[in-house]
């Protein structure tokens, strides 16, 4: 074993610890948050320690899971996402006492998705990720939140069914459940084709790719802000990781079956997602559509199907996540008691809280892909991947999407720098935990834009799909 699954065990321990903390005190308690955060930090340290382990890659449980640098990178990303979500919602009385435990459970699902090398583990990870999120989405206690939870549950269960059906067909067509053995098995063609299509549909549903995106805006809008933060970053990492693993390990041979289809979906998602973002007045919905569009960018990395694509996708996940963390923590501070932020709430923010506005500006410009922020470097990497795969269409789709997105992202900024109406001139209050998130996320975003070399080095190692170009 040599501790390869240590990070996952730490998270399991954290789930128990934070639940016990709630049981002991019989009410919501800050101890649960501390326990959860400690587990995340411990798992992060363990992940970092595993990084240089010579034993990698390690296959466990009859090749059911595969711990390699890719899974460790995914671990790092989802740990960051859950730490951000915990801090954004830090000890907030509006959410149930079980908020930290549920976040950790979903985190565990995302980590499992990073390591899955088997259909069953894949499905386990998807369910482990989804079930706590259904509860979390409904945990706001107000009508929109319950609606979001129910909507997410119904549509999520539907997509899980499709996914399961697809996996069953693939097993029938190949006789194996192990992703890395799929490539060499002789597939029964029509069956395998149908299985592949259904599985991919099930997975891109979680990623929020158009036309399987209908749930995203409503669920993001209805869920409490910290949960939306977590979904926007964490779920995307988990879904992208398993899609990449599934296709790159299992179907690197039969690329003709999925590459063009995913390419078209990526272009459609990037362009339409940004167009829809343009029309939004509610910031959560704006970031929901932005999340859809960004899922399209991630799909560019996957459908480019080369090493650069996988690396660019990993890099982009980080820059997107940091921008989302920064934007959502600013929105949480601006929203205070309420649960949504509209364009009007931002009017005159620059005068009320200049620093907060500056942070928001960095996050939005990073999402828009302006240089000296991480978002630019991420898009640059994706462009390299697309053009290296001789797919100029993907590159054009990416920049057209980015152009449209830009208009969507600068509108809130223009509002923020505009004069206020004088109604609420009081500066926005900064909770300490939220301030930690926003400062780290903004520094990271700028750092990745100014000197990305170390992170580029890390993703180049973690996405070593040597059989690709």
């Amino acid at each position, binding site marked *: 074993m040599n501790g390869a699954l240590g990070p996952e065990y730490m998270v399991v321990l954290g789930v128990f610890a934070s639940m016990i903390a709630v049981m002991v005190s019989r009410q919501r308690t800050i101890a649960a948050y501390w326990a959860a955060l400690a587990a995340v930090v411990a798992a992060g340290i363990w992940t970092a320690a595993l990084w240089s382990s010579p034993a990698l890659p390690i296959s466990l449980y009859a090749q059911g899971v595969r711990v390699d640098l890719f899974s460790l990178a995914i671990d790092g990303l989802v740990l960051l996402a859950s730490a951000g979500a915990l801090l954004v919602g830090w000890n907030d009385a509006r959410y149930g006492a079980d908020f930290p435990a549920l976040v950790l459970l979903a985190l565990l699902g995302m980590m499992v998705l990073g390591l899955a090398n088997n259909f069953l583990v894949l499905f386990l990870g998807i369910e482990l990720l989804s079930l706590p999120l259904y509860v979390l989405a409904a945990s706001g206690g107000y009508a929109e939140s319950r609606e979001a939870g129910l909507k997410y549950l119904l549509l999520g269960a539907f997509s899980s069914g499709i996914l399961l059906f697809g996996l069953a067909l693939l097993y029938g067509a190949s006789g194996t459940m192990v992703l890395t053995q799929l490539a060499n098995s002789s597939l029964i063609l029509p069956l395998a084709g149908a299985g592949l299509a259904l599985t991919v549909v099930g997975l891109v549903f979680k990623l929020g790719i158009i036309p399987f995106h209908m749930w995203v805006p409503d669920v993001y809008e209805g869920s409490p802000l910290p949960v939306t933060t977590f979904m926007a970053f964490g779920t995307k990492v988990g879904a992208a990781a398993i899609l990449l693993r599934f296709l790159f390990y299992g179907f690197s041979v039969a690329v003709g079956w999925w590459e063009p289809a995913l390419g078209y979906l990526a272009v459609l998602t990037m362009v339409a997602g940004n167009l829809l973002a343009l029309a939004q007045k509610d910031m959560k919905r704006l970031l929901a559509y932005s999340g859809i569009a960004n899922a399209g960018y991630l799909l560019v990395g996957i459908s480019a199907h080369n090493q650069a694509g996988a690396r660019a996708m990993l890099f982009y996940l980080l820059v997107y996540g940091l921008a989302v963390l920064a934007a959502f923590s600013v929105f949480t501070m601006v929203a205070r008691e309420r649960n949504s932020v509209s364009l009007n709430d931002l009017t005159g923010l620059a005068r009320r809280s200049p620093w907060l506005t500056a942070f928001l500006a960095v996050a939005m410009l990073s999402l828009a892909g302006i240089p000296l922020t991480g978002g630019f470097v991420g898009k*640059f990497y994706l*462009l*390299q991947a697309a053009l290296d795969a001789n797919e100029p269409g993907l590159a054009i789709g990416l*920049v*057209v999407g980015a*152009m449209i997105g830009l208009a969507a992202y600068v509108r809130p900024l*223009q509002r923020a*720098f505009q004069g206020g109406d004088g109604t609420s001139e009081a500066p926005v209050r900064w909770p300490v935990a939220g301030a930690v998130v926003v400062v780290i996320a903004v520094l990271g975003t700028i750092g990745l834009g100014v000197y*990305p070399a170390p992170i580029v080095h890390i993703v180049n190692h973690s996405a070593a799909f040597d059989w690709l170009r």
Partner: protein
Amino acid sequence: MFLVWLLAVPLAGAIATLLASAKGAKVVAAITSFVALVGYAGLLFVNRAGVNWPWISAWGVRFHLEADGLGLFLLGLNAVLFVVAILASSEEMGRVYYFWLLLLEFSVAGLFAAVDLFVFYVFWEVLLIPVFFLLTQWSGARGKAAALKWLIMNLVGSFFLLVGIVAVAVIHHQNGGAFTFEISALSGMTLPAGAATWLFVAFLVAFWIKAPLWPLHGWMPDAYGESPAPVTALISGVLSKAGIYGILRVMMPLFLPQFRQFQLVLLILAAIGLLYGALAALRQNDMKMVTAYGSLSHMAMMALGIFSLTEVGILGTTYYMVAHGLMVGGLFIVLGLLESRTGTRTIQDMAGLNKSAPRLAAYFLFFVLGALGLPGLPGFVGEYMIIQGLIQSQVVFAVVAGFVLVVAAWYMLRVFQAVMQGPAKGSAIRDLLARQVAWLVPLAGLVVFIGLWPAGITSHAAPSLYHVTHFLAGKGGGQ
């Protein structure tokens, strides 16, 4: 290291303005820009060494800056005009205004020094952001719309430029070369026939919008009309040169065969722009818009110089860029001083102002004469060289350019005559203050100096263009 100075000082100063008091920000900014100007003097007279540091080694990106003859004087234009623009700005603007101004100086300096395409692109796009916020917050009633138009039009161009840059690097790599964004390494590479035209257009559109050149000048009237005078001076004096400079720096080495192939189309487009700008300037009643459209026409003149594809034409353009920047920058600032005194820009509302403000009228006349190309002032030298280049390649366009020179004299003098001469109308205005003369004199002096000694610039630019001109003369070159 003076090159780093030119970048680091404005960046540090930008942060310092944020920490300064609201009233002290202008002083901090003025000192910063002056220190940057001193750094430029060091670059010019002491040491012109560039820097070449690894940045993202996995992609072959290097932070490579050079001050060769092409960019050297544009860096100077940048340093000079920012000092003037900051001194011409009001203290009331607040610290964030000066923060954006200095950030703009930083990014433009980076742009004019970059010889790595990645670095070039980073600065190319970063400079949009300060202008966007300057237009959003410190401009007229329609400033917000002007800002959005500026950002979106320019970014549409830049994103295609981005695809083009990555595609060129990837093609170079796939052809067996190293993965690099170094312009000198990529120059003269063979592009696949199908891709070459598309890439050429992708690059050209970005530069065409930024200049701006007709018909992609849609952002220009609003941005020029709405922005405060110092910002207009910077946009038209410095930023517009970025487009022309980009064609010279980036496109010439990469796309010479395509320039040959499309020369006639490009010349026709530029000539239309030349006429359009001049005729539109003639029809304006807003003195700032006359200058704006006149500037549009002058940008087309520079483009004609490049597209003549002759050594003298291209040299004329590199010279005219600097000269035009100084003159039009000065002109916009003088117009701003005039507007702040009269409260209007409509030329029919003003007359005979030279009675009450003779010094202001004198500087106005000086920059007007420079803009219309009076011999002895630098505009004439640049236009002369460009027309000589056109005569060598396509004489028809030389005739058009000559005609436009006449129109230019007409529209510029029309403004001067209406505003300054004739019987005085309305109340008298205050003349220039001593502190305003203090920075207008050096600017005017500099204009006269480079007008009298053009070789100071052209002799430096010529070696930098050696590769291009050599190739054009058919003496080999290229690969």
